[in-house]
């Protein structure tokens, strides 16, 4: 029974990692940009929610919506003013610039909020759990997992059912020819970053509500996001969800064997996948 419990917890944890990973996967998929500041942006999102709750006195949901709007604008501006200038054949400039952003965000948050650990309070919702037979699952993990599924469903709807989504995919395929269709690459990339940042804000919300956080934890969360993306295989958001679940399962099972092995087990599975299937478990088949 304990194993069934572990597996359920692992899958639910995978939902969190999928949320961490979706923004990263989205941005890489559309503009081949590896955002090294992704983890720090999630932490920034968590702090944005915190400001809404503690300084503006809003409820957590209102704060999250506000944080999402803030991150949308921030993402658009950042891509428009800075990151679009780094894109090109060479993959190094965006890496260097986002690495720099990571340091700027960490230090900015330290300056503004000190190094204290913080936590988003969800009004007792953290304590609620649901009983399935003999297994009890926290309501928060269930909500996280459902959020991941809803986010991915919405993004897939956007990509495959709307004109803007078509423009995203066309630009990702061939930015030069996309321009001939009247698509402004810079605008599309800025919009993509803005959208990804909304997902980042959602990830930040759960990051802050499920555990404590401080200004410096971004990079370690980036690793989980990164592992989930690679395990799942690039190019498909459902793959990213699956990657998150595999990582969550590995960590939960590792922790069950020995509490100190949680992260290590995740890393080992990640490396094993890289060796056995370098393109990930669910790579997008050509085209």
């Amino acid at each position: 029974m304990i194993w069934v419990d572990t597996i359920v917890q692992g899958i639910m944890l995978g939902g969190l990692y999928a949320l961490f990973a979706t923004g990263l996967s989205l941005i890489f998929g559309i503009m081949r940009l590896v955002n090294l500041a992704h983890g720090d942006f999630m932490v920034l999102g968590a702090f944005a929610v915190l400001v809404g709750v503690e300084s503006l006195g809003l409820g957590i949901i209102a704060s999250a919506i506000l944080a999402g709007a803030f991150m949308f604008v921030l993402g658009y501006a950042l891509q428009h003013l800075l990151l679009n200038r780094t894109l090109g054949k060479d993959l190094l400039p965006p890496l260097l610039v986002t690495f720099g952003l990571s340091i700027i965000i960490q230090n900015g948050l330290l300056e503004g909020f000190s190094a204290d650990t913080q936590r988003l309070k969800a009004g007792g919702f953290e304590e609620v759990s649901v009983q399935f037979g003999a297994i009890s699952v926290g309501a928060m993990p269930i909500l996280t997992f459902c959020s991941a599924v809803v986010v991915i469903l919405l993004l897939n709807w956007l990509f495959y059912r709307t004109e803007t989504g078509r423009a995203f995919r066309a630009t990702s395929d061939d930015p030069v020819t996309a321009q001939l269709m009247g698509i402004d690459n810079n605008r599309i990339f800025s919009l993509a970053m803005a959208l990804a940042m909304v997902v980042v804000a959602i990830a930040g919300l759960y990051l802050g509500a499920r555990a404590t956080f401080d200004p410096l934890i971004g990079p370690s969360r980036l690793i989980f996001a990164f592992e989930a993306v690679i395990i799942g295989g690039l190019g498909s958001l459902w793959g990213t969800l699956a990657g998150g679940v595999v990582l969550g399962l590995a960590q939960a099972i590792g922790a069950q064997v020995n509490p100190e092995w949680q992260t290590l087990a995740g890393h080992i599975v990640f490396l094993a996948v890289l060796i056995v299937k370098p393109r990930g478990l669910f790579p997008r088949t050509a085209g």
Partner: protein
Amino acid sequence: MALLSTNGLTAFYGDFQALYGISSEISEGETVAIIGANGAGKTTYLSALAGLRAAGRSMIEFDGSQIGGEKPARILSLGIAMVPEGRRLFPSLSVEENLLVGNYGRKAKGPWSLEAVYRLFPILRERRRQNSSSLSGGQQQMVAVGRALMSNPRLLLCDEISLGLAPSVVKDIYAAIASIRASGASVIVVEQNINQALEVADRVYCFLEGRVTLEGSPVNLTMNQIRSAYFGG
């Protein structure tokens, strides 16, 4: 008055000059063919018209306004669409999505719509859900032409649309060009196949090493004139 004209159009790739002052024009409803050997600058010329290559503002005039060096999206919105060399379909989009993306930047009223493109190329309706990379070369070319038509262009630029296709397929594609002309659009076709060019065009320009070496209507041009303009000498 000409719909489009170029005035001393130049183009560079780094230090290399690809076009040395091309002056050309096309009227409303006219079909012009550009012929010339490999590397003559035909693709560069079309790319400059479409906004993919830098150009001085006054070097290109469309419908009375100077558009040289404008962004491709702006140029499309004015009504110049291109069928690029090598088709360049979007591999992760289905046939229908490739067509639909064609009017992203210009939703103009006109004869062309998804329905009209399917009427022009019925095979594409059968293949609409398929991935564009699963099509034959000729079908892919149809998608590329249809995609450009979706914006209801006033001027359609076609770069080597017959290249690598079987003769019967070339006939189909050029039959389509005839209905595009009939719908009132002006067309510039770049062609390696000189006979094809002479057959379709009202007027022909021959390029050689970035310069216009011959201009005229097919009925007035002799094979000898064309040969020396094409190869130089």
